[in-house]
């Protein structure tokens, strides 16, 4: 079987380009994805600042913005259209290039092969390709900021007819929207390649003794996420192809007849904007779980490590994750209650949406049960894990309101939805990433992060996100519509102080992220050297040096004897049993 052998017996490259740029090593690719996400998240965050600033101080001059977009922000003052452009790029960056890349492709690439005892991913070349395709997609998206009429104004969901009729529809709807569509199509390809690589790796490359039920929950989460990606990005890819055709080949898949855009009658006929919404959200809802399920995995893992207790209900968590994955394909219509969709299907989509809260609730309770009675170690990583549970539950509760069509019809167009999805999808997933960063940093870079800076970062972020996103729920209930660029001369004027509070909170919380950025890069070079197993964790990545050698296990082949979470029983002075420890006794369940 020379074919199989060739894949895994590649030797460490020596040249800079093969080692760090076009690397086949899953660890380097994982870091590349991670830094891609870091770059995107900070750009996205700055854009969200601009959005927030424009909402409360619409006449403020933003330094440099006038030079970037003379038409969109003349003299640095953001125009209403440019506000929508910024919103579009903020959403697209965050959803695709942060929430989809870092938790899955970043940490997954880095840790999955080591955790299952493999030397690399199943298809290293494909892995490299999927990163570079994703990188190209990011370039295409960011370049919209520099093209003549700026980024599209149609939001990250790119609803037609606005997104499909071309430059007549507004600034950014020409070149900008084309680049957006190409970017997302490329991103789909990258994600699909990544997903099939993840599944194959998990299925085929586990080491001896690593049964599916001995895998760390992180690996389960990555596997399930990969399955979701494989099945859902294929639909978005098709939708993007049709959108590109609508825009450039004159087809009318998403465009109805009799469409009047800026006073001009369009020549299209026979299409349906609802079709795009269906295809988009058929991808879009699984996408929510693509963003959050890796976080579930990391949090389950981290809570167990720092509570010094086995995960409560390992099999139940696995079952719940599978159930969530399954159900996520049955609920996409709840994004469309307000779209003019058939009211009967609205009713049908509401039921699974409410059902999906059951596995999510079970998982949340099991996290609390894991922590309960444990010997907690309050590292920064653990605090972010606990913070994850908090924001996930808070954000998730809003989902119970939105799942019901009668309530959603009122709430859907308001800030309630903005608060809900930022909390449950954005912030929770980001907290998962922070937990993952503080947890795996010693392994990835061979040095420890600064705990004091980490704690400061945690507290400002944790309090900050509540200050930003909780009030959004309340002003949403008051009827404050989302996506509007201005409320200055509006009956919503009395709520402006709340907006100002949220904007100031966003500025402070955002600024605190630079503490994290500083901690990250400072610790990378100046942090204390990390031992092999700083967290006294049991899984395979902590049996190898920090950072691990090129082939992960230095030519040896690990053999697994234990479950992933055997904490608590003290023997030989240790309260944990490594998965690879042949002598240790299995923990009592």
């Amino acid at each position: 079987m020379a074919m199989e052998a060739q894949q895994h017996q590649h030797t460490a490259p020596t040249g800079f380009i093969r080692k760090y740029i076009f690397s086949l090593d899953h660890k380097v690719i994982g870091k590349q994805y991670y830094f891609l996400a870091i770059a995107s998240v900070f750009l996205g965050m700055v854009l969200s600042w601009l959005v927030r600033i424009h909402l409360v101080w619409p006449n403020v001059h933003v330094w440099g913005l006038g030079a970037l977009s003379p038409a969109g922000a003349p003299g640095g003052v953001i125009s209403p259209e440019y506000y929508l452009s910024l919103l579009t790029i903020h959403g697209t960056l965050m959803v695709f290039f942060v929430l989809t890349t870092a938790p899955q492709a970043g940490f997954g690439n880095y840790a999955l092969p080591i955790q299952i005892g493999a030397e690399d991913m199943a298809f290293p070349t494909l892995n490299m390709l999927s990163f570079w395709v994703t990188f190209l997609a990011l370039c295409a998206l960011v370049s919209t900021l520099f093209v003549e009429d700026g980024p599209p104004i149609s939001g990250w969901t790119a609803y037609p007819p606005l997104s499909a009729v071309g430059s007549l529809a507004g600034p950014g709807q020409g070149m900008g929207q084309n680049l957006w569509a190409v970017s997302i199509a490329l991103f789909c390809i990258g994600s699909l390649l990544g997903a099939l690589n993840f599944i194959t790796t998990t299925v085929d490359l586990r080491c001896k003794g690593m049964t599916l039920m001995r895998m760390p929950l992180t690996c389960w989460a990555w596997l399930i996420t990969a399955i979701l990606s494989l099945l859902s990005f294929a639909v978005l890819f098709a939708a993007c192809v049709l959108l590109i055709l609508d825009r450039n080949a004159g087809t009318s898949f998403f465009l109805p007849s009799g469409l009047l855009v800026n006073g001009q009658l369009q020549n299209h006929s026979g299409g349906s904007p609802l079709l795009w919404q269906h295809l988009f959200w058929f991808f879009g809802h699984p996408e929510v779980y693509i963003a959050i399920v890796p976080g579930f995995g990391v949090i389950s893992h981290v809570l167990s490590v720092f509570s010094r207790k086995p995960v409560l209900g390992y099999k139940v968590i696995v079952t719940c994750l599978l159930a969530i994955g399954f159900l996520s394909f049955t609920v996409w219509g709840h994004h469309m209650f307000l779209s003019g969709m058939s009211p009967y299907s609205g009713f049908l989509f509401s039921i699974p949406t409410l059902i999906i809260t059951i596995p999510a609730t079970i998982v949340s309770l099991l996290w609390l049960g894991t922590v309960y009675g444990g010997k907690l170690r309050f590292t920064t990583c653990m605090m972010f894990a606990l913070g994850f549970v908090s924001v996930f539950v808070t954000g998730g509760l809003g989902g119970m309101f939105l799942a019901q069509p009668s309530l959603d019809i009122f709430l859907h167009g308001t800030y309630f939805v903005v608060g809900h999805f930022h909390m449950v999808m954005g912030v929770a997933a980001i907290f998962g990433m922070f937990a993952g960063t503080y947890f795996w940093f010693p392994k990835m870079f061979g040095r420890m992060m600064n705990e004091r800076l980490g704690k400061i970062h945690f507290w400002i972020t944790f309090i900050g996100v509540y200050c930003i996103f909780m009030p959004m729920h309340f002003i949403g209930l008051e009827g404050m519509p989302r996506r509007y660029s201005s409320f200055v001369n509006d009956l919503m004027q009395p709520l402006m102080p709340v907006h100002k509070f949220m904007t100031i909170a966003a500025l402070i919380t955002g600024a605190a992220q630079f503490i994290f950025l500083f901690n990250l890069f400072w610790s990378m070079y100046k942090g204390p050297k990390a031992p092999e197993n700083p967290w006294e964790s049991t899984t395979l990545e902590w049996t190898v040096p920090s950072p691990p050698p090129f082939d992960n296990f230095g030519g040896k082949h690990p053999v697994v004897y234990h479950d992933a979470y055997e904490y608590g029983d003290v023997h030989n002075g240790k309260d944990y049993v490594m998965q690879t420890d042949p002598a240790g006794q299995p923990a009592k369940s």
Partner: protein
Amino acid sequence: MEHAETAGNKIVFSVWFGLLGLTVLEVILAYRQLPLETMFSVLMVLSVIKAALIIAYFMHLRYEQPSLFVTLIPALVFILIMMTAIFADSSRLAHMRSLVQ
């Protein structure tokens, strides 16, 4: 080992003839004056049979471990069944268009 088993010439050519026969049947049906819905249903049933023959014999799935079939095909079928939910809006659109005209 079941895995090493493959379809013999006899099976391969019978499948080929079967597929060609079904194709001819489809073409003949296309010229029958059937209502569109009936014709669509019949053609789709025949196409699914053809697809199943290709998957089972040409793509060899019949001779793989059953677990491969069990993981791949139901996932695909599930996705396709879920996607049919969009047709509720399609027929509604047809209805609304008929009201306008």
